[in-house]
């Protein structure tokens, strides 16, 4: 125990005295959240949309009015005929067009499926998808309102959960949990991957190995200080998300903290495993970026939904701790669910396996 | 540019001409009013205790560090004013060889030649001349990392000689090699000096100090002695250079 404490204290001194690395570890999450949040928020502001209202009814006018309500869409053009849509797209005058056909009001009143056409410029796929989703959501809401007001039949739309829990499709809500996962992976895995490899390179490890230390003590001593650093980063990101981007927090902070700690341990385990296996500092850093950061960014569902990936990749996604962590985070923050037995089990197993592997692969000899 | 004009102001026959050279780091004076003349073709031993300021002085003479005050002419160039021209005229080799372990002997030579603007026929000619002299002719395709230490040292020396420097700085060049390899290395140094190159060398092997024409000993930023090894022994009454060093540094 004394040895673990000695190692942890020493490691903490390294962290505190290396001002530049410390600054990177603290500033990087702040900058990332600020940039991601700002960029994505801007993207969803003032999306140019054209409207072609062929119905000219109260209901259709109401639908058009409700478009601008969220502040995401600005109505840039009122079209007179369908032939104007394509030239508009080509000019880049608008990203999407909403066509309300003649008879819209009547079908809605009759409780029949209303056919509203949403045309989207697919050349910017990400924006297009968001625009389509948003327009669809607005139309559905309108339809429900009308149906409720007329006392008619049930609305003829199925509602998607994503829209339900993030009704304004605010990306910041969706992105901030992803950033927590990404930054924790980067900071924890990369910093600890350096931790042992650096001692190999400077020769200090050789000195430590001639003391009566055990591998588990080395790993524990190295993990502890970084748990603190990781927790600090997680708190920073969540605070910025909460106060600057108004990401909702519907679940319990305690559950959130517990899951973050679990994920931090996984990331540290991965970093230490890489560090113990790497012959040099350079290899360790490159391996850490390749094995932890890139998959977390691409495969975890942070940017691209897992469900839309090819099946073999989905298997890979399910192996990734960040995938499960994201499910949990979004669940706690957006949906207010605090307990995820399935994900908890997977994450706990991953944490234990990584730590055990790190301890096992740490050699007390130099060969 | 003005490098040629500074050449004309050089003191005749002196490869290194230093007056009042001083370097401060904050309150700490690492080199304190150094005066030093080294003749062309001389082998000059620059000795001192660890932390006495040798490295700082050599860095200034090689144009890597700006002096706080004083002046130094090396190979006819004012140090600190014409660093690029200075570097064309000097060679530098340290114990921490700057060789690339994953490049072969030839590739290292090509790289260092390239840095000094030497390529094609002139580079081939120069390496044909140097490599046999260094005993590396039959190892040209060996990666530097696979060479025995003695050979590595000779390769590093060769790389610092490619551009025919007028002054050669050697910073503890023989650390860790066996006595036979060390003597071979010194044979090479003698050959260079005989050909007119000035050699400025630091070492912790005191028997090597005997191989120098003149030796200076630095203590806490100042020169405490400068003479031939024989002169220093007469001055201090020391048996050998080890004895001389101990007497002067501990005085």
């Amino acid at each position, binding site marked *: 125990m004394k040895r673990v*404490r000695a190692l942890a204290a020493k490691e903490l001194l390294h962290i505190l005295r290396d001002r530049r690395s410390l600054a990177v570890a603290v500033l990087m999450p702040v900058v990332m959240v600020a940039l991601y949040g700002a960029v994505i928020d801007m993207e969803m502001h003032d999306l140019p949309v054209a409207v072609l209202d062929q119905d000219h009814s109260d209901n259709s006018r109401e639908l058009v009015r409700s478009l601008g309500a969220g502040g995401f869409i600005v109505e840039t053009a009122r079209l007179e005929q369908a032939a104007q849509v394509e030239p508009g797209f080509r000019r880049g005058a608008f990203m999407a067009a909403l066509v309300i056909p003649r008879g819209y009001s009547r079908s809605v009143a009759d409780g029949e499926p209303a056919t509203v056409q949403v045309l989207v410029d697919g050349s910017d796929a990400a924006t297009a998808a968001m625009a389509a989703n948003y327009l669809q959501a607005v139309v559905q809401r309108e339809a429900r309102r009308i149906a409720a007001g007329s006392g008619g039949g049930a609305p003829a739309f199925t509602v998607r959960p994503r829209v339900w829990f993030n009704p304004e499709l605010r990306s910041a809500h969706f992105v901030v949990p992803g950033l927590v996962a990404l930054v924790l992976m980067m900071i924890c895995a990369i910093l600890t991957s350096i931790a042992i490899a650096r001692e190999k390179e400077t020769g200090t490890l050789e000195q430590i*190995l*001639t003391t009566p230390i055990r591998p588990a003590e080395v790993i524990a001593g190295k993990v502890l200080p970084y748990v603190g650093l990781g927790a600090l980063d997680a708190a920073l990101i969540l605070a910025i998300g909460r106060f600057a981007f108004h990401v909702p927090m519907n679940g319990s902070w305690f559950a959130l903290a517990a899951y973050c700690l679990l994920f931090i341990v996984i990331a540290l385990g991965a970093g230490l495993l890489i560090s113990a296996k790497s012959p040099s500092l350079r290899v360790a850093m490159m391996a850490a970026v390749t094995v932890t950061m890139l998959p977390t960014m691409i495969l975890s569902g942070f940017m691209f939904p897992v469900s839309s990936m090819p099946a073999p990749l989905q298997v890979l996604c399910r192996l990734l701790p960040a995938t499960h962590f994201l499910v949990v985070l979004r669940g706690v923050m957006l949906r207010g669910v605090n307990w995820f037995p399935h994900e908890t089990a997977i994450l706990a197993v991953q944490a234990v396996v990584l730590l055990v592997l790190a301890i096992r692969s740490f050699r007390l000899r130099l060969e | 540019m003005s490098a040629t004009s500074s050449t004309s102001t050089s003191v005749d026959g002196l490869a290194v001409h230093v007056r009042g050279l001083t370097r401060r780091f904050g309150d700490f004076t690492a080199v304190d009013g150094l005066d030093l003349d080294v003749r062309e073709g001389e082998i000059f031993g620059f000795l001192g205790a*660890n932390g006495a300021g040798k490295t700082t002085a050599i860095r200034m003479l090689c144009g890597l560090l700006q002096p706080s005050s004083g002046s130094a002419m090396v190979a006819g160039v004012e140090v600190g004013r014409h660093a690029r021209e200075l570097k064309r005229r000097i060679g530098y080799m340290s114990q921490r060889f700057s060789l690339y372990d994953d490049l072969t002997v030839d590739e290292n030579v090509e790289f260092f030649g390239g840095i000094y603007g030497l390529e094609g026929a002139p580079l081939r000619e120069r390496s044909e001349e140097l490599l046999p002299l260094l005993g590396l002719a039959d190892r040209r395709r060996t990666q530097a990392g696979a060479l025995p230490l003695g050979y590595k040292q000779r390769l590093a020396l060769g790389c610092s000689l490619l551009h025919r420097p007028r002054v050669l700085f050697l910073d503890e060049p023989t*650390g860790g090699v*066996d006595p036979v390899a060390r003597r071979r290395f010194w044979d090479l140094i003698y050959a260079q000096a005989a050909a007119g190159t000035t050699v400025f060398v630091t070492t912790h092997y005191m028997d090597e100090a005997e191989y120098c024409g003149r030796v200076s000993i630095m203590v806490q930023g100042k020169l405490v002695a400068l003479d031939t090894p024989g002169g220093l022994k007469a001055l201090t009454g020391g048996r050998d250079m080890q004895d001389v060093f101990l007497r002067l540094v501990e005085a």
Partner: protein
Amino acid sequence: MNDAIVLDGLFKGYGAVPAVRGLSLSVPAGTICGLIGPDGAGKTTAMRVLCGLLRADRGAARVLGHDCATAALEVKRHLGYMPQRFSLYPDLTVGENLRFFADLFDVPAAERKRRDAELMAFSRLEPFRGRRAGQLSGGMKQKLALSCTLIHTPAVLILDEPTTGVDPVSRREFWRILRELAGNGLALLVSTPYMDEAALCDDIVLMHAGRALAQGTPAAVAASFPRRLLEVTGADLIEAGRRLREASIVGLDVQRYGDCLHLVHDDQAQADAAARALAGTGAVLAPLAAGIEDVFVEMMSRADAEVAM
């Protein structure tokens, strides 16, 4: 054998490259054994086997009777090891480095404070307790590294080239400390590339290419020089060397040693021929007892000649 450090027929290679080829030595408590030889001779490998950092291919390594491979933990408790490269933390202060190693060795608090004070006094590092290790001079770094290896009061000390790159004054002080430690009953194994440090050891092993060229007390090793030796002084050595080369006397080896030449030869005829070649240069020839370096150079060239054949 009851000696504190024992190597018995040690073989150790890295893949197909042999590093140590049959090395035996033993160091009793209270003595200093010097492993003397250039880089690549196998000194570091032999020491790492003793510290349990490497496993021997063949042969035995024991410290205080404990096998270094099977009882590594027990060995480590009684052993202080100072690797060749400075291996303390440059961003930690002198005091913090010392404290860290005390904790790794589980030194009890009271014992640690006493030991800390002792080591600071003998290394004269007390004024620098708060200074970062990276900002110490070379000699002070070596003394701090030594202090860290002594914090748990080991019975055996293994030092890998502690004086390489250190100036003669610091080297002399360092050796004075080592002699004091031996006086306290420690067994020391010290490697060095400096031949002149042989005289400071009780026993020496001259190493080259993984083997011992010669071993024993420094006097015995020097006396084992198998040929005759003349010292040349009083002449211009470069001129004298040139003349001797031109005379091409068969069997005569000429080596420069500081301010004189050593003429290694086998009989009087060769000595006379050398004297004739140097006639008129003012050279004084005198018989000389061989030193450690003469033995090393001679044995090394014999060993290399054997390999070449």
